[in-house]
């Protein structure tokens, strides 16, 4: 079952084409890496999929809803974590969870048991009443991710979720992503870190608004005859420069 599907999805700002007729599909429970240099059109593409921005042309559906016709329904079915740290620092851990649970319509009776269960899984029980600003960055990001999937969305969009943390903390963070994918939540993640790209089931690489490559990290490395995703990325980026 395809939870994300696009055909020739395009976004233009005036004469500038930010996203140029991209077509791809993402299956349920898949971890889909969305790579590209800054300005390649990742963010714009993601905003269209999240229902924040209307496509200029083309088709896209997310969680079964058309991105042009039903953006409000999409918003209810997805979770989102931005590159900036996105919880309220002056609210307690449980208050943040309660807030987003309320906004996403988690039934009132379920909110408290779910908070307790979540904190137990994370080993955060003792921090339930801590102000978020007092937590270390790695914990904040884990909490931020847990908040994004607190309402059990079909898909979670992660926009460079691990900026600023070390590889060990990134590894821990990815454990949470795997857990979510195991539960059937589709993970759509943008990243700069090529070690993270290796963790994805499939990755797409955007260059100048188009998707230039889309496959599993293993296949991509084979195709470009290189050892690491870093080199795959480098070759594609060089292709972009050569055309300019």
């Amino acid at each position, binding site marked *: 079952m395809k939870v994300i599907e696009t055909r020739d999805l395009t976004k233009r700002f005036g004469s500038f084409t930010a996203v140029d007729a991209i077509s791809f599909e993402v299956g349920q429970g898949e971890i889909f890496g969305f790579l590209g240099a800054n300005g390649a059109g990742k963010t714009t593409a993601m905003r269209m999929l999240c229902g924040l921005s209307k496509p200029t042309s083309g088709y896209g559906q997310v969680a079964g809803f058309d991105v042009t016709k039903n953006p409000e329904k999409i918003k209810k079915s997805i979770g989102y974590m931005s590159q900036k740290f*996105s919880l*309220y620092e002056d*609210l307690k851990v449980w208050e943040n969870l309660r807030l987003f649970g*309320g906004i996403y319509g988690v039934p009132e009776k379920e909110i408290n048991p779910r908070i307790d269960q979540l904190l137990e899984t994370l080993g955060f029980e003792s921090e339930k009443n801590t102000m978020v600003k007092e937590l270390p960055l790695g914990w904040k990001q884990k909490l931020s991710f847990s908040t994004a999937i607190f309402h059990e969305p079909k898909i979670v969009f992660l926009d460079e979720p691990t900026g600023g943390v070390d590889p060990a903390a990134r590894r821990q963070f990815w454990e949470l992503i795997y857990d979510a994918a195991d539960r059937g939540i589709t993970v759509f993640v943008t990243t700069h870190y090529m070690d993270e790209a290796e963790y994805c089931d499939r990755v797409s690489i955007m260059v100048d608004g188009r998707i230039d490559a889309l496959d599993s990290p293993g296949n991509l490395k084979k195709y470009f005859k290189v050892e690491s995703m870093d080199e795959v990325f480098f070759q594609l980026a060089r292709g972009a420069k050569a055309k300019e």
Partner: protein
Amino acid sequence: MRKFLVFTQKEFYHIFRDHWTMIILLVLPILMILFFGFGITTEINNARFAVYDPSNDMATQKIIDKIQTSEYFTLEAYLNNPAEIETIFQKGEISMLMVFSEGFYENMVHTGDAQILFIADGTDPNTASTLVSYASRLIAAFQQEEMGAAGTPPYQIHTEVRLLYNPTLKGAYSTVPGVMGLILMLICAMMTAVSIAKEKELGTMEVILVSPMPPLMIIISKMIPYFVVSIINYLTILVLAVYVLDVPIVGSFFLLTMLSLLFIFVSLALGLLISSLLETQIAALLGSVMGLMLPTVLLSGLMFPIENMPIFLQVLAQMVPATWFISAVKSVMIMGLGVKSILTELAVLGAMAVVLIAVSLKKFKTRLE
């Protein structure tokens, strides 16, 4: 609806947990009204005054005696000719001058046309008007005594007031309406602008925009706490005005409240507009100070009479919402006039509210595209 409630609750948490916000919201207005207010009513003791008395008769001597023996005034000098009037003020030695008409006693008894002119230093209008009103009261008391003792037909002393440097001073009660406008503008516009800019700066706005919260609901949730706080401020100001500063509410309380609610809407919309144009807290803060606070303080008539401004600033002053609000509050609260007398102000403020809300909602929406 539940979304709306949890989101509004969160806004209250933001306010309650930030000590500085709490101080700005609840303490600052009280301090402002007291500081500005006591500028009006502070008791003045031993203010120095001078006399120009071409008559120099029994009556003028009695009056001068009465004034200088009161606790409020100390006689500094007698002037010998009118030319000294300007210079003695420029030296800053006195704050009030009494000028008696010629043949004072004769006129007082026979023609009833005895005159005293008070000249006060209008650079400090509050002090000036207080001094003049004290002195006038003393003259009135003098007339009362004379009448009682002699049993002669009542005669009149005409007192006339002239304020140097600030001739259009409107009266002592002008400060309360002005400060009310300033505080409501500060709380509603600046705090709303800063709180929306804060979410943009921290990145939480993005997450909220991706959520199923409709944008209009986000905005309304943001405004509600400041709306509530500004109503508290409004009531606090009135209580302080009436019970501490002795400024009565002459007109209809209901009308005054409706007027203030309208002004609060205008201010909230202005705050929203500022926050839709500016991205960071510091920019929103500076934008509010430059764009709202300064015009409100300088152009609304709170500090300086609009009639005295150059024509360019007068035109500019008409665009400041507080100008209209303050003028209407004076009419209702101080002069006790009815709704008919403030129709223009209500219409202008109403139009401003509609335009500002429409423009800022449009701005807020296009930003999402």
